[in-house]
């Protein structure tokens, strides 16, 4: 297994290099110059000032050379200095916010699994009944409704109209950092909105898989043996139905990381997504690159974890 992990990580290297070249090129070829944006409207700014700041960030060099310099430093963990946060390192800015994004992503993932999986099974076991139809209705909505829109609707309902939940940030001003109840109140809405699509996905997936699995011979055998429905479903059916869930998990993680970009913006959640979005707007190349590379690395690792999880739920699959 150790060998397998090492090999997978080795394969990740060309992927990451590819991503870095593409993002580097796209960010620089898109219209707009970061230093001109940074200095726009500053009284008495001179061409010499603009040129000096550009040189300080290495933006006066030819693009290929800029990339090589960036890559050389990035390998050593130095993603350069942010352009718009003048006294901050790009990697530090990103790393500081990773815990916030992980909190949100984990909360959303838990909601997806805790709601989506049981809902799918219940729907399958009650196929065609009212509860199945409700579940299917919500899973369709969840797939179709864009999350930023739902975020705004939730804010209007739960924050503005009902005044039940805070709409912005992670913590009420003046509350202690460790006030968990307050944190929970803040995370519930963004996490739920972020999770909604995934809940729908898992519900659909589990419903289809469970329907498939309960028609299998071994289930009939189990039932024939006189096992209770409960045992049949949970011990025999569920375990097999969960395999595609693990497959989907990798995709869901990707979605949670990318989806958080929008949700963090809507709920002013100070995570990596909010920072990367704002950096892209300001064309803060070093931060965009650091954000994308760190997210890509997390993704590569999450895929690896997914594949290792396969072995746990399905003894037929062996890694290595």
């Amino acid at each position, binding site marked *: 297994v150790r060998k397998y992990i090492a090999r997978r990580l080795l394969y990740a290297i060309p992927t990451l290099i590819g991503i870095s070249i593409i993002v580097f090129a796209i960010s620089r070829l898109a*219209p707009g110059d970061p230093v001109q944006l940074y200095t726009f409207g*500053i*009284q008495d700014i001179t061409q010499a000032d603009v040129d000096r700041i550009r040189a300080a960030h290495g933006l006066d060099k030819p693009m290929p050379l800029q990339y090589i310099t960036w890559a050389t430093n990035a390998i050593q963990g130095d993603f350069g200095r942010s352009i718009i946060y003048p006294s901050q390192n790009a990697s530090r800015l990103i790393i500081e916010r990773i815990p916030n994004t992980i909190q949100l992503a984990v909360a959303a993932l838990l909601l997806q699994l805790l709601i989506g999986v049981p809902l799918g099974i219940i729907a399958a076991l009650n196929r065609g009944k009212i509860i199945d139809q409700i579940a299917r209705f919500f899973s369709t909505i969840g797939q179709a409704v864009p999350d930023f829109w739902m975020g705004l609707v939730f804010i209007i309902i739960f924050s503005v109209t009902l005044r039940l939940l805070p709409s912005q940030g*992670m913590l009420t*001003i003046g509350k202690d950092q460790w006030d968990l109840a307050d944190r929970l109140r803040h995370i519930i809405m963004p996490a739920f909105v972020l999770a909604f699509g995934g809940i729908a996905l898992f519900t659909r997936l589990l419903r289809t898989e469970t329907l498939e699995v309960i028609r299998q011979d071994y289930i009939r055998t189990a039932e024939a043996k006189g096992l209770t429905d409960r045992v049949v479903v949970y011990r025999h059916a569920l375990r097999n139905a969960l395999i595609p869930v693990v497959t989907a998990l990798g995709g869901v993680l990707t979605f949670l990381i990318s989806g958080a970009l929008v949700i963090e913006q809507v709920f002013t959640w100070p995570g990596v997504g909010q920072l990367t979005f704002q950096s892209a707007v300001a064309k803060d190349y070093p931060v965009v690159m650091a954000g994308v590379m760190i997210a890509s690395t997390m993704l590569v690792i999450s895929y690896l974890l997914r594949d290792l999880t396969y072995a746990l739920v399905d003894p037929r699959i062996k890694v290595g």
Partner: protein
Amino acid sequence: MAAAHRTSRALVAVFAASILVATGCTTGGPAATTAPTAAATVAVQKGGRIIEGTFSDIRTLQPVLVADTPSGRITDLIYDRLIQADPQNGEPKPRMATFTAGAGGKSYTFTLNANANWSDGKPIIAEDWATGVKAVAMSKITVRKSDFSNIEGFQEFADGKATTISGIVIDPANPKKWTVTLKAVQCDGIFQMSGYTLPAHVFGKYVAAGQADAIDKAAENDNPTVFSGPYKFKEWRKGDQVILTRNDSYWQGAPHTDEYVYKVVADATVLAAQLKTGELNFGTIEPKDLADMERVDSVKISKYQNLGYTYIGWRVNSPTATALADKRVRQALAYGLNMDDVIKAVLFGEGQKQVAHHVPVQWAYPAPATLNAYPYDTAKAEQLIKDAGYTKGADGFYAKDGKTISFTIRTNSGNKTRETLAQVAAEQYKKIGVDAKTQFEAFQGLVTQLQEGHQSIEAVIIGWALGNSVDPYTIWHSSNTPDPATKKTGFNFTFFKSAEVDKAIEEGRSPASGDCSVATRKGHYATMNKILNEEQPYNFGFANNTLAVTAKNLENFKPGPFSAIYNMHEWWFKK
């Protein structure tokens, strides 16, 4: 003081409502509902927390590296300034220091207040101010070099050719007193020189000769430990909030409130909602939210004219929209747009029409009678177009030599005010036989194209936030015209050039005579504004009102045209 002062120095393009709000640099007009009498009769109650809403997080806590309005707000609250603009008329007034101008306007002598101490008890001295100047000299990424480049010996120090700045001489008998000698007269220089007083006992080690750009990487930049302003830095939760606490040793007396929080919110709608619920107790709203806010009992609204304007710039040398080169056509475009309607539509009446560069609350604003007000008059507009040699075709558009008067007004997408202005303008210009189209695009690309002088720009809607300085050099002087051939960039992106305007600007900025009196400078700016008003390189659009909302029980909030937060240490909450 503060925010207004900061923006004062920056023309900071108003590219989003966020900046407008963050600017908060309030202006003029009736400070409607503030009640100064309350403070006089009721005993001040201590405590409470000011929570201000902003759309943008700060980016640094090092004043030398500030290039944006939110960061300026915070650094101005933790590092006090030598000079402040009078909140009502913008004139330079002593704050932490008094000043006297030397003969000929080429030197200034400053004396720091005897009570001015750092929060660690050390006195604030001339060397602290010099530390700020040296930091600017040595930084590779500051945008503030021009603040001090006029000081004798500044460049030599920046280039490493000298170990001290020869133009700064500290009084050997009084460490709180010093004289600054300038290379040339700079009438508005006093604001710029007000600069950045940094604790020498903290930052001195980064600006010693031979330290290169160590100041850019100083650990204390974003984790400051010693303060001169009314508040002390406590915490910066990035992307979320900045928390400041009361500075008990503040030289003007400890602030009445315990804390100040600068809270990032998603947008104007959220900001307005949070002002209503009391989650915020200070912020600036958009005109569309005003009527709703007026129904809220727990807040009060202060209105003042904003120190800036939104305009349509005409590219006078456009190779494609050649008609814009003709002054008569540009004048027709002023007569042909009912700006009062626009102000009603996009600002709900909270603004006023502009017909020249300076805004009414600035002392440089000329007597209105000297300017053409360009009242809405389609007949006159069409007559001017005809005078310019155009005839109306079957399609209803005017044309000359087979070329229709046609151009595209571009602006940044997402800014509803500007998008609406563009749409209304295009619609109304069609009525006077002008084929105007609109195009909305990303701010980033647009700004770069403007500054680089791209040929494709025909007309653009954008805004200027003006500051304490009335000097329009960066916007209107011909030397600030972009030049794509030499890759020179600049803010005079309509390519309007006038020797007379140049001369007026130069005389108002750095007169050969050394005469920086308001009366004389006012004459120069009247000349400039008269020409701009006549030539119409911009349709000068409108200046909007700032709509500041505070909790009803916040006392002593007395914003003036040039600053809203100059007296924040005196604000208090009535319980």
